[in-house]
């Protein structure tokens, strides 16, 4: 028998070791010469016991199993029993081995292919989610409109509209939308998210409300803001 740096580490488990021995001795897996294989297996275990502190329990369980099969096969058979088809004590082990061998062989297929992706590079995704919300018009614009309506109503409750305020709307634009865009953007940049209503806390006129609302719509159109609803409250999110 070859001399011997028998390392258990090289094997994935007791079945792997057994397959190795079967292959090395060029014997038929369906007709394992149990004495030969058991002896060689035990040699591995003994050798490993000298060097390694610990042999994993699976190897020892298999050793016991092999010795059991060996002893069973060495025992003389009863003549009457021989007539009946007595089960080959090796059968279960052989099935285990064949089952394991199938997967071990097919694992080479995966081993050959495991590095395919290493030769390919992928791009990080663009901000698809932001686009998607905007493109699919999934934003709750109706809620936004409702919220705007409520802001207007509240404002009217607070101040009975005076003649001057109407003049403002009809006349030139007293509150430039551009300025409000900048203002809303500043708020969004610092806070990330604000409730729609809070944008109108300090408004002094209807036209200011309209201007702020237009500013919000402009920002949404230019994909710089999104709308969402949380707990029945409309929020504006920063998108940059």
């Amino acid at each position: 028998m070859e001399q011997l740096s028998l390392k258990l580490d090289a094997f994935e488990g007791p079945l792997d070791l057994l397959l190795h021995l079967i292959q090395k001795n060029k014997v038929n897996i369906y007709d394992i010469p149990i004495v030969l294989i058991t002896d060689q297996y035990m040699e591995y275990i003994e050798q490993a016991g000298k060097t390694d502190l610990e042999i994993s329990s699976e190897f020892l369980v298999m050793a016991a199993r092999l010795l059991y099969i060996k002893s069973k096969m060495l025992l003389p058979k009863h003549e009457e029993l021989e007539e009946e088809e007595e089960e080959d004590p090796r059968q279960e082990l052989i099935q285990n081995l064949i089952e394991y061998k199938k997967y071990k062989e097919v694992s080479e297929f995966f081993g050959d292919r495991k590095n395919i992706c290493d030769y390919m590079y992928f791009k990080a995704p663009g901000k698809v989610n932001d686009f998607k919300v905007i493109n699919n018009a999934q934003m709750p614009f109706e809620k936004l409109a409702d919220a705007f309506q409520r802001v207007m109503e509240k404002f009217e409750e607070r101040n009975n509209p005076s003649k001057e305020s109407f003049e403002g709307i009809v006349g030139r634009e007293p509150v430039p939308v551009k300025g409000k865009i900048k203002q809303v953007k500043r708020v969004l940049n610092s806070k990330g998210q604000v409730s729609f209503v809070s944008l109108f806390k300090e408004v002094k006129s209807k036209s200011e409300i309209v201007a702020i609302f237009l500013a919000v719509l402009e920002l949404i159109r230019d994909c710089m803001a999104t709308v969402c609803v949380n707990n029945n409250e409309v929020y504006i999110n920063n998108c940059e």
Partner: protein
Amino acid sequence: MNKEELREIENAIEAILFVAGDGVEEALLAEIFEMKQDKFREIMTAFADKYNFDEKHGLKIIEYGGMYQLSTRPECVEYLSRFAGNKKPTNLSNAALEVLSIIAYNQPVTRSTIDKIRGVDSFGPLEKLINRDIIEEKGRLDAPGRPILYGTTKEFLKVFGLKSIFDIPELDSMQLSVEDFENGELKMPEAEAEDEISRGEEQ
């Protein structure tokens, strides 16, 4: 659909895949182009073939698990690695590959089945495969202890360059299967068996 219309769709597919970076579901693409999925698949497959094999761009369209994705062409790897550095190689031990094989053919499957087939504990390799996103939990078996069931992921298909799980080779490539043995076609020849035993005694 005439040639120009087709060209337009193909260009748009390419553009979408570029922006997406990640894999894009075939169903979503079909929806975007307002087509039945079968019809879209036809166009997509022809386009991918043309793109990958006739025109041979620096990019490649890969398909896995009903998704399409742009990747760089493997042949470009040398120059790319000079530009972007080498990718960390996919490092899977033999144990992990064995566990993966068992899962791929038996999914969804419990750890105890895997352990039983391998004859050895599989906790370590299983963890590694989960961390690499190659396998995942697929629910639990309705049995005592409710053990976790494992199955392969789309990432698995991507890593191993497979379009679908059906692309893995047939398992019973071995000439003799367990059934043959059980059917008694391979009965142990008596004489040889005794031979073996007596040889054993001599030793």
